[in-house]
Structures are given as C-alpha cells and as structure tokens.
C-alpha cells in the first residue's frame, strides 16, 4: 500500500472480484491519498469503538449483528462498492499500524476487529459465507472415507440433539454421488479443487483441535473425539466459529509482523509524514470536539460553583474542588480543567478572572500575570501559534499519567478504590449504584463507569455513553433544564 500526497486521484479502480468481506490477508498494491489515510482510519475507528461499547454493555449476538450493520452503514458505506471495499481495506491496514505498537493496543484491536468480522460474516448469505471460507483455505483436514463412515452415527446424534437435521437427511448427503466422486478422485485432484468439490456437496466435516472452536464446544454443538471437534461445513454456526478462529489467529500473527516492521523501518522512514498521524490516531477522540461552546454551555463566573456541583463529571469536579481548596493546580490540571471550562462557555475574560482569583491567594497577582495568564490566553488561541485548543476527551484523560501532586486524569482509572468510592458517595451515589460503577472500574471500563455514574445521578439512561467531559456536562444540563419548571414558583 503506497501512501501518496497527491490531489490527483490515482486510486486504482481495478479492484478485482474481492468479496464484500475482505480477509485482509495481504496489503493490496494500491495508492492512498494522505487525507484518506487518516479519514478512513477515523471512520473505521468509530465502528470499532461502537463495537467495543456494545460488547461492554453485554449486547447479545443478534443485537450485535444489528449494531454492526448500523455502525457500518453510518461510517463506512460508500455508494460505489469497489470504493467501499477500498476504504474497508485501507482503513484496516492503517489501523493495524496504529494498533500494533503495544500489547494493550494490539489486544484491543484484535478483539474488536474479530468481533466486527464475526458479525459482518454472520450478516452474509450462506453462499457468500462459503465463498469467504473457500478463500481462507482452512488449514483443517476434511474427514473422509472410512473415518467419516465410522463417525456418521455420532455426527447424526449431534445434529439431532440440536434439532437440526434428521438422520435420513444426513444419510442422503453423505451418500450423494458428488461426495462419492470427490472421495474417489481425491488422489488425482489438487487440494483446493478437492475441497471445492467436497464443499459443493455440503458434506464436509473438518477435524479441528477442540480449543479452536470454544463456542461450539461450550454449546455441545459438535462431536468431540480425542481432542478434536468435528465441525460441519454445512452448518452456519459451525462455519462462523471456524472462520472467526482463522481470522483471529491470522490477524494476531500479522500484528506481530506489522509491529516489527513499524519499529524497524516505518516509524523512522515516515517520521515526518505518517508517524505523527499514526501516533495520534490511537488516542484520538471521535465525537464533537467542543471547541465551540454550544447552547447549553454558557456559564458565567457567578454560576460556576453551583454548576460544578450539578453538572461537572467527577474528573472536573475533583479538579475544581482542589483548585478552590489549594488555590493552585499543576500544569496537567490547569490544562484539563481550563480547556473544559472553555468548552462549557467560560469566556476568556471570565477565565482569567477565575484563575486569578484563586492563584493570587497563593502566588500573588504579579506572578500570576507573569507566569499563568499567558498560558490561559494561549489556550484560548490568543498567544503563540494561535491555535484554538480543544478540550480533552476521555481517551486522552484516561491515558494521561498524573504524577505526584497532580489532580488531573480520570478518577475511575487513577483513584484508589477507597478514594473513588468516597468521591462517588459525595456525588450522591447509592451503594447499589456504586457497586455497578466499581464493577466496570475493576474491568477497566472507565468510560462506562462514568456513564453509569451519570445514569445513577440523573436517573436516565445515556445510550451514547460518555466519551467527553464536555458531553457529560451538556447531557447533564439538558436534563436539568428540562426538569426545571419554566416559571419557578
């Protein structure tokens, strides 16, 4: 895959007969524009984050099918099929680069891509599924001849125990002339043609180490013998399990190779071009950036204390309280809270007044003007390179590394269990709500923990999940304002 910086569109149209669900076995020889390199990756990332959220919320397989279909339509679909396939492939390979860089990233990417693949595969028609299986060239031995003969009765039992097929039907399939032919001709055929022929009669059973199809073992959906599961090529659920296992193991190996390539050559060679994009992508946040305050976000100095209690997420509330208490925050805290306040609509002048009020109690007004005021104007794009900085999203806050004396970061991740519990009970969480939150924390679902806190406090569900402190603030304000009667009594 070549990345080019051209506006001219040279992306090949010669995508040849790729099925609509690529296996990403090799990076295709195509040219990609730099903008697409990033944009496609972001779109795919939105899908993967959606999948991750769905899984963490315990959606069942059918709900996940629907979710994946919706997510795909929303972010990945293009009217031109071949372009969509290109986008699919490009975005996957870009994210491989992004997520090959640490074990934690690899693990996340591997499970999300596998889940995505599983549900996309499930959504395909059986013919297409077969084509995909054929393309994979499953490394399993097909059971034939006398071995199949000796297992026939038990295989029939399994099928009937699942209420799927009568023994007669099995009889007919296994004695069909085509199957017979396939077996007889085996010595004269190439392996792939043999497997095609066998496949065509829907009669193939694969002999697979049982640990590779755990879901089929768990449901007693396969015959087990001496450590092998006998997986039916004719059954959709069996097929999914096999293919997904293959997909996963292939991608897992590929990520290790990509990582090697990345660290030995790509990172250095692309240090001015792709590397910054790649490094930013894994922590990128995909919702609105809240650089402009919205209708709900418009607070003035006099409201700020009250609003901080009613609508700030825990991370901001904590920083806010610490600032009021210590009259000081270290750099990380100033950035996290300062940009958040900008996002909720605190004007530059108010912001200066706000920080000045606290800091002067500690450092004096002269030092404040000299050392701190600049940074605040800088955040508002009034100094230095005049970038209008955007508030931090959860992903950035969660991955930050607060040190000694720091109060920034994500409380769900960075607080000790006791401290977090104390903080949550100050927010008014019941002990039951608290247990749910702590459960998510223990499983490292920090954003879900925050979402549950939100749901417990405001008593409404938050289906989108919390991805950004400013989103938390806005959602909270929406709820509070809708509850406030128009004319106060």
């Amino acid at each position, binding site marked *: 895959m070549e990345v080019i910086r051209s506006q001219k569109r040279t992306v090949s149209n010669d995508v040849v007969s790729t099925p609509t669900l690529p296996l990403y076995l090799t990076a295709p020889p195509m040219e990609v524009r730099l903008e697409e390199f990033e944009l496609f990756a972001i779109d795919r990332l939105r899908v993967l984050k959606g999948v991750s959220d769905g899984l963490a919320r315990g959606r069942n397989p059918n709900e996940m099918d629907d979710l994946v279909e919706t997510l795909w339509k929303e972010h990945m679909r293009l009217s031109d099929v071949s372009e969509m396939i290109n986008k699919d492939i490009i975005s996957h390979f870009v994210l491989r680069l992004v997520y090959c860089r640490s*074990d934690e990233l690899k693990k996340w990417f591997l499970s999300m891509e596998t889940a995505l693949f599983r549900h996309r595969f499930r959504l395909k028609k059986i013919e297409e599924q077969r084509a995909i299986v054929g393309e994979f060239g499953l490394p399993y031995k097909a059971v034939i001849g006398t071995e199949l003969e000796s297992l026939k009765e038990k295989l029939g039992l399994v099928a*009937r125990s699942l209420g799927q097929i009568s023994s007669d039907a099995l009889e007919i399939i296994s004695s069909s002339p085509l199957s017979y032919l396939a077996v007889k001709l085996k010595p004269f055929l190439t392996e792939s043609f043999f497997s095609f022929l066998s496949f065509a009669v829907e009669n193939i059973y694969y002999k697979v180490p049982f*640990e590779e199809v755990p879901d089929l073992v768990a449901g007693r959906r396969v015959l087990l013998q*001496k450590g092998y599961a006998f997986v039916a090529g004719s059954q959709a659920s069996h097929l999914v399990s096999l293919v997904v296992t293959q997909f996963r193991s292939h991608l897992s190996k590929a990520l290790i190779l990509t990582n090697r390539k990345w660290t030995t050559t790509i990172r250095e060679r692309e240090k001015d071009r792709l590397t910054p994009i790649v490094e930013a992508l894994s922590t990128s946040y995909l919702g609105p950036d809240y650089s402009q305050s919205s209708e709900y976000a418009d607070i003035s100095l006099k409201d700020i204390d009250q609003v901080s209690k009613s609508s700030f997420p825990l991370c901001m509330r904590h920083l806010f309280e610490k600032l009021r208490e210590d009259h000081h925050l270290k750099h990380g805290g100033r950035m996290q809270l300062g940009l958040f306040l900008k996002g909720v609509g605190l004007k530059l002048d108010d912001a200066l007044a706000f920080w000045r009020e606290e800091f002067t109690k500690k450092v004096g007004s002269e030092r404040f003007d000299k050392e701190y005021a600049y940074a605040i104007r800088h955040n508002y794009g009034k100094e230095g390179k005049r970038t209008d900085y955007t508030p931090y999203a959860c992903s950035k806050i969660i991955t930050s590394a607060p040190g000694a004396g720091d109060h920034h970061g994500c409380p769900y991740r960075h607080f000790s269990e006791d401290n977090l519990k104390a903080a949550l009970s100050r927010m008014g969480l019941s002990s039951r709500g608290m247990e749910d939150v702590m459960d998510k924390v223990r499983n490292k679902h920090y954003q879900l923990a925050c979402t549950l806190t939100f749901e417990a406090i405001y008593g409404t569900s938050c289906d989108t999940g919390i991805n950004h402190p400013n989103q938390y603030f806005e959602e909270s304000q929406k709820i509070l304002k809708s509850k406030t009667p128009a004319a106060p009594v």
Partner: protein
Amino acid sequence: MTREEIVNNGEDMMIDDPKPKIENDFNVHYLRIYYGNLFPYTDIHKWLSYGHDGKHPGCDEYYFGRREFSFTLENDVYLRYKSFKNASVMEDAIKSNFPYKIDIGAVYSVDPDKRHAYAHSGTNLFTPVERELVFDIDITDYDDVRYCCSGADVCSKCWPLMTVAIKVIDTSLREDFGFKHILWVFSGRRGVHCWVCDAKARRLTNEQRSAVAEYFRVYKGNENNAKKVDLMGHSLHPFLARSYVDFLKNFFEGELQANQSLFSSEEKYEKILGMITDEDIQADLRGKWENSARSSLSEEATSRLRWEQLKKTLQSKKNKALSLRTCVEEIVFTFTYPRIDLEVSKQMNHLLKAPFCVHPKTGRVCVPIDPNNCDEFDPLAVPTLSQLIEEINSGGLRMDVDDDDSDRSLLGKSIKFFRSSFLEPLLKSCKEEIESSYKTKIAKTKDSFSW
C-alpha cells in the same frame, strides 16, 4: 511478611504443649510431624516442575518458581502469592509455617513473590500463563437427591454419587478431549478434585476453560424449578448418551435405588412427579402409588416397582410431546449427573487445595483416587493424621516411603500410586515435549539466518 513473623512466634509457643491425646484426628502437633516426616515434597515438586528439572538445555529452570502457592494457617491467616525457587525452599516454608491448607495456583509470567516490582510498570506483566484444568465436585451440592446425609457429611450410601461423577468426567476428558494425565484427589472430607495436567490443558485460555466447563453443564440448579435438568432436542449429544448408557442409567437403577429408595415415600416421589410436565400422567401415577402405600414390599422393592411403572407409563405414550420422551432421561440425569462447581474450572488463577494436604476437620489426607478402581475407594477408610502418627510411633522411625515395604504403610500406597500411575507417565511426556520444542527452536534459529 510481618504476618509470617507473627506466626513464627506462635510456633515457639507450641513447644510447651502437653502431649496430645491420640484420639483426636487432627491437631497442630500431629501436623508438624506429618510435614516433618511424611509429606511427599519431592513428588509434588517433580509434578509441578513438569520436566523442567534443569537437566535438558531446553528447560525453563524458573518454571517451578513462578507457581503460586498459598497457605492457610491456624486461625485462618491466609498467605497468598507465595513462591518457591525449588523443592527445599518449599519444604522449609511448609515446615516452618505448618499450613492447615496448601493451595496451588497458576504459573505466572513473573515470580508471584516479586509481583509488586512489576505492578507499576503499567503493562501488566504479572499474568497467569499456565494452569492445570481443574474440577471440583462437592457432595453438598447433592443434598436434594440424597436422603442419608446432608451438608458436609458423607457416608457409604451417598459417596457412590462421587464415584459415578468421576467415571463420567474422567471418561469424557480422555475420550472426548483426548487428555491423558489426569489426577483425581479426595478432597479430605466431602468431595473430589480433578487435575488435568496435559500440556495442552495447562495452556488453555480462560475462554477455552469455560468452554470445557460448559460442555459438562447439564444441571441448572434452581430452587424455584422442579425440573432441574432440561435435555432439549430429539436425541442426546453423544457425550450425554454415552454417560447415560455406560454409567448413569445402571447406577440410578442399581446402586442409587438400593441406597436411597428414591420412590419409597410420598415426599420423595412427589419430587420426581414434579419433573413430569404432563399433569394427567402425574395424577395417574400418584393414584397408583397412594393406593400401594401399605404394601408388604420393602422400601427398596417399592421404589424399584414404582420406577418401572413410571418408565412404562412415559414410554407407552409414544405419540405424546417430545418433552415426555426425554423425561426418563431427565430424571436419571437430575439424580446422578455430576454436579461440578464450574466456576472453579473457568479461571486460570483459581486456587485448589494441593494433594496430600490434611483436612483440618476430618484429619484425613487428600489422597489420590484411581479412576479405574474408583468403586473401591472408601472415603471413610482414608488414613487420618492420628492413624499415621500411630503408625510412626509403633513402627519406630522408619518412615521413608521409598522403602520396599512402602506398600504396607498407610500412606505409602497412595504415594506409590501417585508416582507410578500419574507422575511417571506425565514426566515422560513432558520430557518428550521439551525435547521436541527444543529441536524446533534450534531449527528455527537456523532458518532465521536465511532472512
């Protein structure tokens, strides 16, 4: 660490204890003699080293040292994440702590004792990497189907439930899953533990462990549902069919009926009638049985007769619903199918009591059970601590189990079985595996010069 010191202080105080009376099955004094003279340290170390004995260049000499042990001391002081470099360090630790219970955990990526050194690196280096696939079956889970005992008690009338569980699970582990190195151990009081030690089993992920555990799940214990086993579908899965035909049916109709007389009283048979979904059939059978309440037959004979009647009634209604056709099987499964504590099997880092521990309540040693002769195993004949001590006292100080007459000593038999039936074949295959993976590794490094 401070905890250990406290315990060591306690040890000093023990010295003044009066000589304990022989009748007690368990006391700390005995336990110290047991750990001092009888506990098979070398065998346990050999087992848990899995051939990594430092003799082969492909060995991982730190393998044993990364295994978690945990001790439960007197007064329920609980020490987790202990690890030992070798057999003698383990022996010293056990002899100085004389734990009431020793649990074995997983092999971790790094030495569990030093896990804190890695805790702050952020990449979570401390994770379990290997662990035997284990099963835990407890007779207390059978309380609703045994009428002789309840709770932790066990007698010769209900123990056969354990025996049939061993047969069903052992057969499946070997025939279905292809495992070879399986150790069954008496848990010392009321159940059995199973350790599957094949390399493949030790490397299963949590997901794969869950899959195996779920494969064995039939019983869905639920107090609010009379029907505790639901065998859906038109036929039994081959594993269930084999279990039924080879073990469960005969056990139900033979031994279990003889021991428990499952239909002998109204209270008992009502439980079974509740599992029949057809009310007409229920009423029909109930009518018959109420009338025969005062027959001259023995309890057991009455029970057998009623079972035959039930079978005949259910099986004669061939055209009735599918659920009735599987009803006979469901009743048999409900009463006899192994009730495994599945959660124990699903997680790599779950702890399980080590073989050859002594149960503090019964004083009985957790000895291995031979699955091929499990019918002969009698939990009440397992040597107790006091018997072992008595044997030592009467036989002088000759306690070396390697002796020729080890067969005759109470524990010697069990240790000998552990060695010859489990340890030797296991180590043989471990060494073969180490050898072959070493060869592949050498071949690979040669290959890698080419690119």
